[in-house]
């Protein structure tokens, strides 16, 4: 088995040691599990540091020994405090925390807010108010309440293919945002299956009763949920002015750009209407490569819209 890099092992040790010192004694298994490290790896690394020392070697630098599956740590001298949070870790925690503060149910005086404040102050990098995440739409709050109370709701939903919003009953499981849009995974009563809806296309929401279905154990993860679905694909050539397409929408793949900045993009298409809108907005910064059935979508849509302007 390949050895883990020395820096990874040392970094992990410097996290594990202060915790062990606080515990005094703990089972190898518990420590290994907590820090997602193999039992054998943990034992080997702890035995190694227990042998570390400096002249004149009168006392152990790190007083740790392992006996019958238990780790015992003596009076600490070194490595009693964890490493500072790296820039990446600080961002990860603070951005996650500030984003979560925008979610329905977050309490501005609650434990998350207090924890974030302590971290920001403790790091000496108070960025309160300087890392701003856009608020969650009110429809997400209504959905969240329905999820928490396990309710079935009737929504008027504007799908990309219907002419007008259509009433349908759903049992929402989880609401999430991805690439700037909010979605909800829900059991759709009409089709008797799991469906994903865009929250901003829900015109209205009314509670109709208790939910009868439980959330499936696994739901498609955002970013991948298009990939799992049986959705048609289109392959496009997109010019430099159309880069927002692959910045904004989930795509299967983007080729390296050619010398003029054009790329080939393959992306899922939820409906022909949706594709028509996309192509019109791109104008001459796009060409449909395949399927050929869609090569007239842009010009047909342009003619229909032009009628309004004549």
């Amino acid at each position: 088995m390949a050895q883990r890099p020395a820096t990874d092992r040392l970094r992990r040790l410097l996290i594990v040691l202060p915790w062990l010192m606080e515990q005094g004694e703990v089972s190898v298994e518990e420590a290994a599990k907590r820090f997602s490290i193999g039992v054998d790896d943990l034992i080997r690394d702890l035995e190694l540091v227990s042998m570390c020392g400096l002249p004149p070697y009168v006392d152990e630098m790190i007083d740790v020994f392992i006996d019958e599956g238990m780790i015992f740590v003596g009076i600490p001298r070194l490595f009693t405090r964890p490493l500072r949070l790296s820039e990446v870790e600080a961002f990860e925690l603070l951005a996650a925390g500030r984003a979560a503060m925008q979610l329905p149910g977050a309490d501005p005086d609650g434990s998350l807010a207090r924890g974030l404040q302590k971290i920001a102050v403790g790091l000496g990098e108070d960025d309160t108010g300087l890392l701003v995440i856009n608020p969650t739409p009110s429809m997400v709050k209504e959905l969240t309440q329905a999820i928490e109370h396990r309710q079935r709701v009737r929504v008027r939903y504007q799908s990309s293919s219907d002419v007008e919003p259509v009433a349908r009953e759903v049992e929402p499981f989880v609401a999430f945002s991805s690439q700037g849009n909010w979605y909800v995974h829900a059991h759709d009563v009409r089709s008797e299956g799991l469906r994903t809806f865009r929250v901003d296309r829900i015109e209205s929401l009314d509670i109709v009763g208790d939910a009868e279905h439980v959330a499936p154990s696994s739901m498609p993860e955002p970013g991948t949920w298009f990939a799992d679905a049986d959705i048609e694909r289109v392959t496009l050539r997109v010019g430099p002015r159309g880069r927002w397409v692959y910045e904004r929408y989930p795509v299967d793949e983007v080729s390296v750009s050619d010398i003029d900045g054009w790329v080939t993009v393959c992306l899922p298409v939820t409906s022909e209407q949706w594709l028509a809108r996309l192509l019109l907005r791109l104008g001459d910064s796009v060409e449909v490569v395949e399927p050929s059935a869609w090569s007239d979508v842009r010009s047909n849509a342009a003619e229909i819209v032009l009628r309004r302007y004549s």
Partner: protein
Amino acid sequence: MADRVERLTNLLALLLETRRPLTLHEIASELGGQYPDAGQARRAAFERDKASLRDIGIIISSETFGGDRAGEMGYWIDRSGFELPEIDLTEDEVRALQVALAATRPDSAIGEEALWKLGGAGGGVGGPVRMHLPELPSLPVLRAAVANRHPVQFVYAGMPRQLDPWGLLLRDGFWYVIGFDHDRNDRRTFRVDRCDGEISVDSSVQFDRPDDGVLAGALPTNPLLLGDEVPHEREALVHIARRRAWLVEREVGPERIRDRRDDGSVVVALPFTNEDALRSWVLGFLDDAELLEPSDVRQRLIEWLESVA
């Protein structure tokens, strides 16, 4: 060969415990045989260890001696420079962070490690609502620069920029950095994902930030006003068919409705600076929207359609 973790641990301990800076020669002799004897190989091994420690956040300080050891370097490690300051989180607070990470950064190894350092553990379970934060390698650097008020430099649209970063905003799935642009001598907003190359930070300078509230109005809620060039603002009138009227009213707000017609359609008045964004927004409704004014923009939209019809 001895395990490199052992040498790194010993080096770390030695440089933490020493009361005075140590030369490489002294370090090697204290660590008895763990470094190569030959000068060049020893130097190379030491530099490699230095870099490894830096990778995990431990900086080896150095100074050049004077006097009879003039020119020689001495090394030590300042404990306060790498140890986590006391952040006394309650169990509730740790758990709240755990849940926050699960809701916004599921399966983040980095977040889990950060929680370990704070005395918590990963494995939080997200609730019924989750916000997935877009990741970009330059965000942590920018956040630290914002918090420490350090100026940054980067390339944007092919031009080098010098910016005092005032804050970071996440809006509609994109991260923006807002601040004072020294080249333009004015406030500017940049899409972080469009900043090219490395962001370089000048940590020798601390800029002054304007009073609170600069971020609140920094980014227009109306995407038609976005764009880093700021020509003058104009107003567009757009006719929206009945079946899309509710969507538009929710998006732009009832105060933008200029006219409600008997057939249920509406005319909305929209301030805009970015014509591309306006055209894109109107075309997104296909024939459910018609741009009425300004007439020059309407004319260019018609030409846009004719070129692809």
